[in-house]
Structure formats: C-alpha cells, structure tokens
C-alpha cells in the first residue's frame, strides 16, 4: 500500500515539476494563441520571425543579465551600454563600406561593452560593493560617455555592409534572429554544461561554499559581468545596424525589460536559479505582448497599464500554480 502511495506521489511530482519548469512556456503559448485568434496573420511564420527580431536585442541582454542574477547579482547598466556601444559602432562604420569595417564595428561594440562589464565586475568582485550600485553607477557613466562621444547626436551608420546584418536574412531567417539563436545556444551550453556555468550557480547558491569548493569567486564574477557587458555591446551593435544609426538615447530602460524577461523566465533574484531557455521564454512573453498590443492598436496609455498587469499576472500565475501543485 505504502509503495503504491509512493508511486502515486512520484507521478504527481512529475506533473508539478513539469509545471514548475514549463509553466511560463504554457503562458507564452496561451498568450500567443489568444492573440492569433484575435489578430489575423499573427500566427504566421513571418510574424514569428518579426517577433523574434524585435526580441533579439533585449533578449540577448536578458541572457547576460541572467548570468549576473544567477550569481545573486544584477546588471542595471545594460541599457546604457547599448547606447555607448551603438555610438562607438556607428562612429567606426560611418562613411565606410566594407564588410571588414562592419565586422570590426561589431567587435568594437562588444569590446566596449566588455570593458564596461570588466569595470562592473572588478568593482563588484574586488571592491565587494553591491552590483546594484556598481552597475547603477556604470549606467550613469556609460550614458554620459555615449553622449560625450556623440555630442548628443545620432551618428549615421548606413554602411550597406553593416546594415545588411540587421536587414539581411539567412535562408529566410532574419540576421538578428540568427545572432540571437547562436548567442542563446552558446550561452545555454556555457551555463548548463560547462564548469563556468556550474560555478555561476554555486556562487549564487552559497558563495562561502563555492569558495570552499575551490571556485575562484572573483574571477567567475568578473567573467560574468564581462559576458553581460559584451552581450549588451552586441545588442547595441545589432540595434545600430537595424536602425542605420548609433544614438546615445538608445537602450533607454532596456535593462528593466531584460531583468523582467529573466525573472518572468523563473530566474530567482536571490541567485542560484535560472536558465537560458526560460529566459528566452520570458523575453518572448514580453515581445509577443508588445507586438500584440501594437497590432491591436491599443491606446498607448492603456498599453503601459496592460503591460504592467501582464508582467505581474504571468509571474503571479506561475507562483500560484507552484503553490497549489
């Protein structure tokens, strides 16, 4: 009898676990289905790619932020880093035409992002000050530098080679989506299958234990913030290529969207829990919602209100499901 009861509970566990793991995916699917019924053409490949393209940039940032959050930290500077990277990328590419220059601009944007991340990471890891403050400071600084570099003006970036990355497509898949997928796959492997990722979780789980287990906590944190910075830089370059210009006002408040995506995806702000695929689900929920509200032509004031409600609602629903199950 006991054994039977056990078997029953074991089966129940599986449902619970699946709900825990994939509850948000379900919410995403439901949201998408609802909008598909409401809006003609919403459930088309073309629209899906369009959503993915729109999501790709802050989605990539969200992946970097997920790493930071899993260590128990945060990155508030990513929006400002997007601006700085876009300005730097545009400065490099403006007036030039070749692919070499275009790739160099992408590299430079990521490099600038990495430097910002390195500063964030050093301050956090060695200075032992809360990453909230370190990256808040960096947010102000990076935007200041972006404005200084650009003198407050957009910088034209309409080199054909460069913009073809944002405009072009590979076998029908938009270029930005291709980049998003590559980043997601690489980062997913890093997070779930590599020593680095395991150490990231360990730090978030218990930093003392991580130290006892021989994890180089400082180095790992440094890497995490450099990665987050580089990804924000990449997003900046992508946006520049999409918008044909770099602009110090780009990326405003993107850090909040990115963090929301990560948390909607189940990343715990207390650290130690999170995953790249679920972060993508979180980003897609935001993306689908944005697109749906725009296509429905919802009044901009109401859009904000509904957006806030959906974000809270999704997380609330997820939390309730878990509690009950």
């Amino acid at each position, binding site marked *: 009898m006991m054994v039977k*009861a056990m078997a029953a509970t074991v089966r129940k566990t599986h449902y619970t676990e699946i709900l825990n793991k994939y509850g948000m995916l379900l919410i995403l699917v439901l949201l998408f289905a609802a909008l598909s019924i409401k809006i003609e053409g919403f459930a088309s490949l073309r629209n899906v790619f369009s959503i993915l393209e729109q999501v790709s940039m802050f989605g990539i940032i969200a992946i970097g932020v997920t790493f930071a959050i899993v260590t128990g930290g945060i990155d508030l500077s990513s929006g400002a880093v997007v601006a700085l990277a876009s300005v730097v990328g545009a400065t490099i590419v403006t007036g030039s035409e070749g692919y070499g220059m275009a790739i160099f601009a992408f590299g430079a944007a990521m490099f600038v992002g990495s430097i910002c991340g390195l500063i964030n990471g050093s301050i956090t890891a060695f200075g032992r000050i809360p990453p909230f403050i370190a990256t808040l400071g960096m947010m102000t600084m990076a935007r200041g530098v972006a404005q200084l570099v650009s003198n407050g003006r957009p910088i034209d970036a309409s080199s054909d080679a460069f913009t073809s990355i944002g405009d072009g497509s590979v076998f029908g898949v938009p270029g930005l989506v291709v980049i998003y997928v590559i980043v997601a796959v690489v980062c997913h492997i890093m997070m779930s299958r590599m*020593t680095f990722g395991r150490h990231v979780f*360990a730090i978030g789980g*218990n930093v003392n*234990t991580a130290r006892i287990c*021989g994890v*180089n906590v400082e180095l790992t944190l440094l890497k995490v913030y450099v990665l987050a910075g580089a990804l924000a830089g990449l997003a900046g370059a992508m946006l520049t290529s999409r918008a044909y210009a770099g602009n110090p006002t780009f990326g405003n408040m993107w850090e909040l969207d990115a963090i929301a995506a990560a948390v909607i995806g189940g990343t715990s702000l207390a650290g130690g*829990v999170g995953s790249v695929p679920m972060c993508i689900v979180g980003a897609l929920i935001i993306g689908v919602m944005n697109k749906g509200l725009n296509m429905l032509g919802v009044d901009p004031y109401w859009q904000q209100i509904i957006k806030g409600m959906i974000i809270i609602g999704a997380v609330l629903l997820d939390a309730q499901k878990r509690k009950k199950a």
Partner: protein
Amino acid sequence: MNNSDCILEMINVSKTFPGVKALDQVNLSIKKGSIHALMGENGAGKSTLMKILYGLYTPDAGGDIFFDGQPFTPKAPIDAIRSGLAMVPQEISPSANLSVAANFYLGREIKKGILMDQNAMNNQTNKILDELGIPMSVETLMQDVSVAKAQLLAIATAVSYNAKLIIMDEPTTALTESEVHQLYRIVKKVQQRGIAIIYISHKLGEVFELSDEVSVIRDGQYIGTKKTTDISKEELINMMVGREMDEMFQREDVTIGETLLDVRHLSLPGKFEDISFTVRKGEIFGIAGLVGAGRSEVVEAIFGYKAAKSGEIHLHGEQIDIRKPSDAIQHRIGFVTEDRKLTGLMLNMSVTDNMIMPELHPYEKNHLISESLASDVANTMKQQLRIKTPTVDTIIGNLSGGNQQKVLIARWLLLEPEILILDEPTKGIDIGAKAEIYKLIVELARLGKAIIIVSSEMLELLSLSDRVMVMAEGREVGIVDRENATQELILEMAAGGDVPAVHEQEMASQCQIKGVA
C-alpha cells in the same frame, strides 16, 4: 478519546511531500510534565512531525491532534505559541541583525505607549537568562553570539513563552560536553516547572540521562513508545534501525605509514598561535577542545579558507603554499566544514550538484559536463552512504538534516582526497549512519589517506583517533596517544588550558606536551 494525563496526543498523523511520504499514520502521546525522547534515523520524520505541531506544515487529512485536551490545528507558529507550545528548531537561525534581547522578545515586544520599552525587554531578558544560568550581554548582536550560546538562548526563549510543552529538535548538536551539561541543567529546571518536553536526539546517552519515555519512528511509521527505565540501549537501537547493531564502534588497527602532512608553527593572532603537528598516512588525527578553542580556525587555515599569518605546511616532505581552497583541493585535501548552512550546502541546488562541485572535470565529456555521468556517480554515493532522497536531482534543501550532512561527506569523498579534514562530521547524524561514516573513515585510512577530525563528541574522538591534539584558547595544549587518551584527561587539558598539576608528571611520560611554559 483524550487522556487527561497527556498534554499532547497525536493520532494517525500523516504527511506527504511531493515524492515522499514523510509520515504515515504516526501516533504520539506525551504525558504532562514529562521529558519524552523522540528517536529515529535520519529522515525518519521526526522534524516533520514537530513542524506539524508548530503549524509550519499542514498534515494530510485524516489524523487528529489534541493539545491539553483540545483539538489542535495550528495554522502558523503563532497559533502554537498562543496555545502554549514552543519549539527550538533543529536548525536555529536567529535574526543575526538583531540583539539578543530583540530576538528574545521578537513577535511579543514589550511596549510603553506606542513605543517599544527597550529597557524593560533588556532587563527581563537579563533576568531570565540569569535564572537559567546563561549570563551574557543582552545588547550583543546575535551575529556575534556563538552557535552554542545561540542554542541555549533559543531554549531560554522557548521557556519564557510560558509554554506547557517545549519541543527541542536536536538541541545538542552544536554543543560540546560542558555546554551539554549546562543544557541538561536547564532542561531539568524547566521540567521542574511542570513543563513537558519533547526531546529529539540521536545520542543514546542523552536520552537515557534525561528522558522519562522514549518513542521511535522509522521510515515515517510509528514503531512504539517505552518507559526509558524499561528498555536497554540495544533494544532501543533495534527499534530504530530494525536490526541488531552495536552502539560502540570498534575500529580495527591500520598500519601507519610515513608522514604526509606536517604543520609547523601555524599562527593567526587572535584566533590561534603556534600550532604544530604531523599526520601520517593511514592515521586518524583528532583535534579536541571546547567551543571557541580555535579548532575550526586551524583546519580552515590549513585548507586555505582563512589565511594564517605565519607558519609552514609541508606535504610529502615538501613545503606547500596554500592561499585559497583551490590550492588545497589541488593537493587533494578535502574539508567537510562545521557549519552546514553557512559553508556547506548550496540549498537550492540538486544533490548531484552539491556533490560534484569541488572538481568538475571528471564528469566532463568533450569539455562539457555530462549530466548522466554526474548522476551515475551521485547515485553510487547515494547507495554507498545510504542517503535518503527521492532522486539525486532533488533539491538538497528538501533533505533531512542528517542526509544533507551525508551529501557533504560524499562531496569530499568524491575528490579521493589524500588528506580529509572533517569538522564535526557527524553533527545530526543517526547511529546507523554514524557507524557507516566511521567505517568509511577507517577505510580511507586503510587506503593510506590521512584524516584530521575535529569533534566535540568525546566518544567519537576517542574511538576513532590514533592521536588527539587538545587545544585551549587558541593554543595547542598537547597531543595524546590513543593508548593514553581518556575522556577525563582530554577534558582536563581542554578546560584548564594548562596541564593539571597532578597529572603533569604522569602525562609527561604519556604524551608530548606542548605550549606549557
């Protein structure tokens, strides 16, 4: 239905967690004013049963609980407290940011008008602590109070609730001998006030010393209740584990080889000074001392978790430089730390992840960690150490305290260490598992590894160690051989910090004496 002699009756109480039936129709009756021991192996369900009483878990439907003659269904701890039931939980975790007095009166602050009456709370706390013989400054922040003191404080707090029944879940795991006696005294004082006590412990000695009755649960099922005077140790063990077992561990001898670790004049001013000792292959080296003697700090320094200011460490006759734990791991030194919560568990990670963390590359295939390889190894460990967990993917936070400890030991066994340092390794571990861990330790020694064990359990140290180093107030008092080590001798050395005069001559011949001017 209810018995007027009993303060508490639990009838057919069950509790199911996802994947685990933690309690299956358990019965328990506690007589008014009695000390009732509750025993059972790790994961038997003792803490779960108590948490139900305290309103932390809701039991499955079907059972009944009567407290003081009334049906009892606490929804939250406050209900339990109001009904006259208090608990000292297994893992006490006071609010470290509050003072002793603030913790003492948390949730029932004394007020004067709309403001708190800080003075009254301080005075009252002082008074109660004095009465119970735990004098201390009540304005100290809890984070500066030692674990042992915190444990005694938690008991004092429970007493001050004017409870009719106090639950103590393994109150002695964080204590050393002398504090244990202090605790006994307090427990008896409490009983004299007519308060009943449920006393959970894995230590038979305590149970026989203190309790009037003892109940046993095994695998979530109620086995029975006996008067303590009517039962022998052997019978009790039999009830718990369901088979015959010896309580006293008899270790066999192992051949001891050349010197492996040589610690010379290690110092960290303010914590410990001039610690020197050697550990040989196949040797089990114990470190004894009272709480706060600095034992943990010494082993933490050897492992590189805390930096020593001066001194040398030699391994295989060569001086090595250990600055951080990864250096120690590189030299194949393992370290089971003392504080499970603070430096041991990664609470929201899986059992597997908790085990493999110190060294990940053995689980890599093509530079990627292979989940299946890792779980295979974890499963082997689970079987070997009989870790009670639904799967190795379970979050470690859901395991019972003892099983968590086993996972941590498994963590360092997986490193296949040359030297294994264990700081209070059997904290909260049941008798059966303890024996298994002892066997494992001896097995490691037989394989030529060196073992350093810090323990506050005298029996454990004496039955395991080849030699015991005794520390007092950060100094090394002396090192005693297995043949000469007695409980009395070690206690005396540890307490005085100086070698007692009467023994001096005797001991000079028995052991190397250090640190005596």
